[in-house]
């Protein structure tokens, strides 16, 4: 947990109990007038601790520890695809944002004849959502009594994404790690029984290691993570062994709180969750704190909604997503079909576009650049005025696609009508409804 400026000040020479150190208090050698001023800058991350030549070793250790993220960043990589999870700082996305989307992995077994085929489909899957290419993150290969090494090799050959190797047997694990050499896999799992051998493998093959206990026992999990960490393995992932809705929600919340609010280092790692074939459980893991989500089976009709859910939850609430300003054609409009104007705030755009689309009425939607604000907010901020609307009419050349010169503006900005008629003297301006939901009806009644 980051320390405040005042907490840092207590660790600097001016506050030292050792007179030999204290005499250097406020020496200005760091470039700041006092230790307090330096502490404040450190707190804001605008200065480096190394600028102070006199800071005590003990303080240094404390300050460095406080600078480490409360949930460690874990990186996996495949052949050109990298996945980073962890480094989260909040329990609720509205408090700031969630930073790293959980990796979504599809599980295959080494007894499964089509493992490589599934892996290929997983690796090739990509889907467009509001201009972003959403993809899965890898394949989890489970040792189930088949030829693990051969399956891992075949999956790696078929799919360029990172792998999770699922086995608790160190001999099998090593065979899998050998087959997966060249990429950064996650090894699952070290247990209270096998942890020494597994930790050794994780060290040798330089891969992150998941530690696994049964039944959501947080104490046992923390103890195991500490033991593994004691062998020098730093990249750890936690599996508290909960598989159902209610216990995973409780235990994952507890672990996240321990890491963030209690600064409990022993559990300061991302979590791995297994959702089986239940997309609802996978959805819960996405929203509530998993770093890796393993699902059984690959089916686009389920994967696509899950990827969209992940994109939604991990959208930064501080930066509303915008759509590109321009002309959007809905339901294949003809030159005689209506033209409507709105702003480029994504939710505004989606509300309007979705209403028109579901009504089945063809239309042209002109999205003005209102810097990502909704209609009323943008109007109040002067980002959605007659001048801007007129400019987008000209710059998009929408007039040339139509056989009429008539447009519908949102009811909330009816006041713009007069000014717009001045800016666009050849156009007829119609005031539409205030809410998108009333658009289809408005179009049916007013546009004919």
């Amino acid at each position, binding site marked *: 947990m980051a320390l405040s400026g005042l907490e840092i000040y207590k660790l600097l020479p001016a506050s030292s109990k050792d007179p030999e150190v204290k005499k250097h208090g406020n020496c200005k050698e760091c470039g700041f007038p006092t230790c307090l001023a330096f502490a404040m800058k450190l707190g804001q991350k605008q200065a480096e601790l190394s600028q102070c030549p006199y800071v005590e070793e003990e303080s240094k250790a404390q300050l460095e520890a406080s600078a480490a993220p409360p949930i460690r960043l874990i990186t996996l990589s495949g052949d050109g695809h990298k996945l980073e999870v962890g480094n989260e700082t909040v329990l*609720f*996305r*509205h408090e700031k944002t969630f930073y790293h989307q959980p990796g979504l992995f599809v599980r295959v077994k080494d007894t499964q004849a089509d493992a490589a085929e599934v892996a290929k489909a997983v690796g090739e*899957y*990509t*889907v*467009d*959502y509001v201009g972003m290419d959403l993809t899965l993150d890898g394949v989890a290969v489970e040792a189930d009594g088949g030829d693990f090494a051969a399956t891992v090799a075949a999956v790696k050959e078929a799919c360029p994404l990172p792998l999770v190797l699922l086995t608790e047997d160190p001999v099998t694990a090593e065979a899998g790690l050998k087959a997966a050499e060249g990429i950064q896999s996650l090894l699952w799992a070290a247990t209270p029984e096998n942890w020494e051998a597994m930790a050794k493998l994780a060290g040798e093959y330089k891969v992150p290691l998941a530690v696994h206990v049964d039944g959501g026992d*947080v*104490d046992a999990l*923390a*103890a195991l993570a500490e033991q593994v960490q004691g062998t020098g393995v730093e990249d750890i992932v936690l599996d508290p062994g909960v598989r*159902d*809705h*209610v216990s995973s*929600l*409780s235990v994952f*919340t*507890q672990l996240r*709180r*321990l890491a963030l*609010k*209690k600064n*409990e280092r*022993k*559990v300061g790692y991302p979590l791995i969750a297994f959702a089986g074939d239940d*997309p*609802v*459980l996978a*959805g*819960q893991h996405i*929203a*509530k704190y998993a770093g890796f989500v393993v699902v059984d089976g690959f*089916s*686009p*009709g*389920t*994967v*696509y*909604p*899950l990827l*969209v*859910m992940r994109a*939604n*939850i991990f*959208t930064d*609430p501080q930066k509303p997503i915008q759509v590109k300003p321009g002309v959007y054609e809905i339901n294949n409009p003809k030159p005689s079909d209506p033209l409507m104007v709105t702003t480029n705030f*994504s*939710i505004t755009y*989606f*509300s309007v576009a*979705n209403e028109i*689309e*579901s*009504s089945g009425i063809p239309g042209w939607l002109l999205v003005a650049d209102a810097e990502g604000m909704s209609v009323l907010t943008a109007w109040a901020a002067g980002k959605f005025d007659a001048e801007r609307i007129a400019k987008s009419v000209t710059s998009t050349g929408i007039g040339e696609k139509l056989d009429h010169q008539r447009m519908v503006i949102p009811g909330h900005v009816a006041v713009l009508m007069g000014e717009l008629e001045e800016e666009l003297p050849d156009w007829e301006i119609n005031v539409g409804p205030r809410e998108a*939901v*009333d658009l289809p*009806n408005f179009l049916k009644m007013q546009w004919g």
Partner: protein
Amino acid sequence: MPTIEVPKEKWSGKVREITLGATAADGGTRAKTVTVGGETTLPYLHFEGDIPHPPAIAIEVQDRKPADWSPVLLEAWGDVTEDPAAWAKAAEEAGADVVMLRFSLHDDLSAEYARETLRVVLDATGLPLIVFGPGQAELDNDLLVPVAEEGKGEKLVLGVCEDKNYRTIVAAALAHGHLVDARCPMDVNLSKQLNILISDMNLPLERVVMDPTTGALGYGMEYGYSVMERLRLAALQGDGMTQQPMLVTPGEEAWRAKEARTEEGVPEAWGDWAERAVNWETLTASALVESGADILVLRHPESVKRVRAMIDALMSN
């Protein structure tokens, strides 16, 4: 081995308990009532507080066969969509706790029509009812006032009650013993303000359901999700004007999305239509269960099953 102490929040607030429907003993005709709310912690964290009631699932039934519903939905219900009474019965059989009767927009809407439709649905099911108008403030008033009279004493939830028409709807609820669905566009302060305005009209807050407005998966779901988390946190921290149970409409919103509605001209990567469509509704709903929904209005019977399974799992403690 030192034991790690699991951090527990000490919440001072509690969500209000609200009961939908009235049995004969309370002046209504419902076979049973449904109580929601009463939470003293965040959703399903049983280790630090009480979750006395599972969220209720309402199934949406329309007054006549919907003209704009996806064929996936219409096929799932079959012929009952032709008749609101049969549909309400089918909804009860499909596992609804509550039936939502929604009037669609057409030329036959009138006070008398609204009364008759309500009457046949009340006669067909013993479940509590939510009654929504077509969603245009003036028209809603014209229909919901006679509905409130006709259903006197049934403790219906009348909606939507928003800043434009709350006076009329609240007055009707006050006069005839109903509840209101207070809807605001995804904003914590607007929700609080509407609750204040409603309680200033002397409708007890035990008769107000808060509706934060629902966005479908992919179409703003996360805005509603976060507003709900903020409202629930405020409620637990003791802010009395945010302690209403929350009603959401994932069925309506998800089935409006192209992903659920059509199979024509969509990318291959979207996968099987029916599978995707039901997932769209289910995942929209399940995210809102996680963020504190107390009443979920759904449309597809399979989504009802899945959301019910999730709720059962989250309540099994």
